[in-house]
C-alpha cells in the first residue's frame, strides 16, 4: 500500500515515456516475452480478469450455485436505491472528515519541526513517527479496543482522573466511529508526515534566507513561503488520504464488526459483509464497482490536475 502510493506519484512524475523509438525490427521480442510472462500471467489471472469478471457479474443475477442470468442494470439500481448503502457512503465521508484534516495538520506541524532541528534528532523523529505504519490493523485494533475498555481501560481511567464520566467508546454509536478514526490516524500518520517532510526539505533554502533578511518570523515564512510552495503536496495528500480513508475497512471489521447499530459500517465493510452473507454476488460487486467508479474518477481528475502545469507557478 505504502509503496504503491509512492509509485503512483512517481509515475506522474515521469512524464517522458522511457521507451525508445523502436527500430523496424525488435531486437529482443522473444526474450522479453519470456521475462515478462510471469508478471503478465499473474496480473492477468489475479487482477485483470477479476476486474473484467466483476464488470460482467455486476449485470448478472448469480450466486455460486446457479447459472448467471442477465438482469441489466438491476443490481446497480438496487445499490443506489438502498438506503443502507447510501448511509455507508455518507458515513465514509464523515470518517474522511474525522481523519484526513487532522492528519494533514499534524503532519505539517511535524514536518515544520523536523526541518528545523539537528539532523540526528530529525532521524529519531522520522523513525519514531513511522513505526506505527508497519503495525498490522489487527494488532492496532487489539491494542485500541483494550485501551477503550469501558470499566478497566486506560482512556476512561484518564478521563476519571480529570473528573469526567466514562464513555463506552466502541459501544456507543455516537462515539464508535471516532474510536475507529483514532487508530486509523495512528496507522496513517507515518507516511503522510514523511511525505510532508520530504516536500518541505525540497523547498529552496534561498527563499527563507531572503525572507529572514526582510525580518520575517516563522509564522510569516510559513504562510508566505511554505504553504504556497507545498500546495500540490497538500492536494496530493488530501486525495490519497480521502481515497484511503473512505476505503478503510479492516479496522472496523476487527474492532467493531461494523456495529454498534451500523455506526462503523464504512462502505467497503458494508460490501464485504454483504458479499459474505448474501448469496446474490451481483449486488455486492455492483456496489464495489460503483465505489470504484466514484473513487477512480475523483483520483483520475485530481491526478491529472496535479500533473498539469496549471498548478505550478
Amino acid at each position, binding site marked *: 500500500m505504502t509503496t*504503491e502510493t509512492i509509485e503512483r506519484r512517481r509515475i506522474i512524475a515521469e512524464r517522458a515515456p522511457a521507451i525508445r523509438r523502436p527500430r523496424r525490427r525488435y531486437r529482443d521480442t522473444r526474450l*522479453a516475452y519470456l521475462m515478462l510472462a510471469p508478471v503478465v500471467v499473474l496480473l492477468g489471472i489475479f487482477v485483470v*480478469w477479476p476486474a473484467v469478471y466483476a464488470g460482467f457479474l455486476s449485470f448478472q443475477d448469480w450466486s455460486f450455485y446457479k447459472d448467471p442470468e442477465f438482469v441489466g442494470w438491476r443490481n446497480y439500481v438496487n445499490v443506489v436505491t438502498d438506503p443502507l448503502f447510501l448511509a455507508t457512503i455518507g458515513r465514509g465521508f464523515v470518517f474522511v472528515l474525522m481523519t484526513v484534516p487532522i492528519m494533514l495538520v499534524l503532519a505539517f506541524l511535524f514536518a515544520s519541526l523536523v526541518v528545523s532541528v539537528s539532523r540526528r534528532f530529525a532521524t529519531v523523529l522520522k523513525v519514531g513517527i513511522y513505526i506505527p505504519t508497519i503495525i498490522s490493523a489487527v494488532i492496532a485494533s487489539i491494542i485500541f479496543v483494550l485501551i477503550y475498555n469501558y470499566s478497566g481501560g486506560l482512556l476512561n481511567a484518564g478521563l476519571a482522573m480529570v473528573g469526567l464520566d466514562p464513555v463506552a467508546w466502541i459501544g456507543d454509536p455516537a462515539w464508535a466511529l471516532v474510536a475507529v478514526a483514532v487508530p486509523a490516524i495512528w496507522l496513517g500518520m507515518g507516511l503522510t508526515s514523511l511525505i510532508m517532510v*520530504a516536500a518541505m526539505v525540497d523547498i529552496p533554502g534561498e527563499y527563507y534566507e531572503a525572507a529572514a533578511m526582510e525580518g520575517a518570523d516563522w509564522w510569516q515564512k510559513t504562510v508566505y513561503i511554505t504553504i504556497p510552495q507545498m500546495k500540490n503536496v497538500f492536494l496530493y495528500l488530501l486525495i490519497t488520504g480521502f481515497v484511503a480513508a473512505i476505503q478503510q475497512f479492516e479496522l472496523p471489521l476487527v474492532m467493531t464488526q461494523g456495529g454498534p447499530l451500523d455506526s462503523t459500517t464504512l462502505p467497503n465493510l458494508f460490501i464485504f459483509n454483504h458479499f459474505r452473507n448474501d448469496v446474490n454476488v451481483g449486488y455486492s460487486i455492483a456496489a*464495489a464497482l460503483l465505489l470504484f467508479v466514484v473513487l477512480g474518477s475523483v483520483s483520475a481528475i485530481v491526478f491529472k490536475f496535479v500533473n498539469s502545469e496549471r498548478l505550478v507557478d
Partner: protein
Amino acid sequence: MATAQETTRIVLAGRDPRRIRRPRTAGAWVTLVAKGIAGALFVLAALFPLAWMVIAGFKTKTEVVSTPFQFFPEVWRWENYAQILADPTFLRTLGWTFLGAVLFTALSLTVNSLAAYAFARLEFRFQRTLWVAVITTMFIPGMTILLTSFIVVTRLSMLDTLAVLVIPGAASAASVFFIRQFYLNIPASLEEAAMLDGCGRFAIFWRIFLPLSKPPFVVMGITAFLAYWNSYVWPIMTITSPDRFVLQQYLATFRSERSTELGLLMAGSVLAAAPVVILFLIFQRQIIGNIKMAGLK
C-alpha cells in the same frame, strides 16, 4: 586518533556552515527546549500504544483491563511471553507465516525484477501497450477485485493452500515500476563491456543487473514481506483450516475465542509485531530515504 580521522572526514565533507554553533541566547534556548518537547510528544504519541502493549504483556489476565486502572503491573511477569512461546499452535503459526512471507517475498522479487529488466532494457513488440497495461493495474482499487479474485481462486481449487496466499499478490505493478526505475539509471557503459565479451541480454541481467539490485530489492522486499505478514482480509476469506491460519488470523481468532486471556494475547501481539519492527529498524534508512517528492512540487 579517532578524533584526527573524524576531523579529516568532516573537513573533507565540507561542513555545512549553517550548523556551526553560535552562542545561544536565552530565547534560543527556549525555542530549543520547546522543539525538544514538541518532538518528544510526537514520538510519544506514536510509540505509546506499542509501549502499552509491551507492558500489558507483563500483566496477569485480570490486570490488563482492571478497576481501578493500573498502568504498570503489580509484579512484572515473564509468564505470558514464556507461555505463548511454549504454545505449539502459536509457534507453528509464526513459522508458517514466516515461511509464507519468505516465499512471497522471493517470488515477488523474482517475477517483478524480470519484468522490470525487460521494460528497462529490452526492445520488443507491443512494449508501450504492455507497459500501460501493467501500470493500469495499479489503479484498480482492492475491493473491486477482492470479491472476484475470491471467485477465481475458488474455481482454481486454491482455497486453503499456501499457494492462495503466496501466488495471487506476487506480481505487483508498483514493484515492477520501482525496480525498473532503478535499472534505467544503471549506466549503459557497464553493459557494453559485457556485450563485447559476448554476453547475451539475459546474461547481462543475471551477471550485472542482479548483483547491483540490492537497494530496490531491499525496499520492495520489505514492502512485500510486510504486506504478507500484516495481511488479514485475504487470509480470512481463503484459509479456513485453523491449522493453516496465518498470524493475524490467529491473533484475531485468539482475541474472540480466548477473550479473557488478555496478558497472553498482548504477549502474542508483541511477538507478532516484533519481527517487522526489527526489520524496519534495520533498514529504516533505506525505507525512509525512499519517500521522496519526485516531481510533485
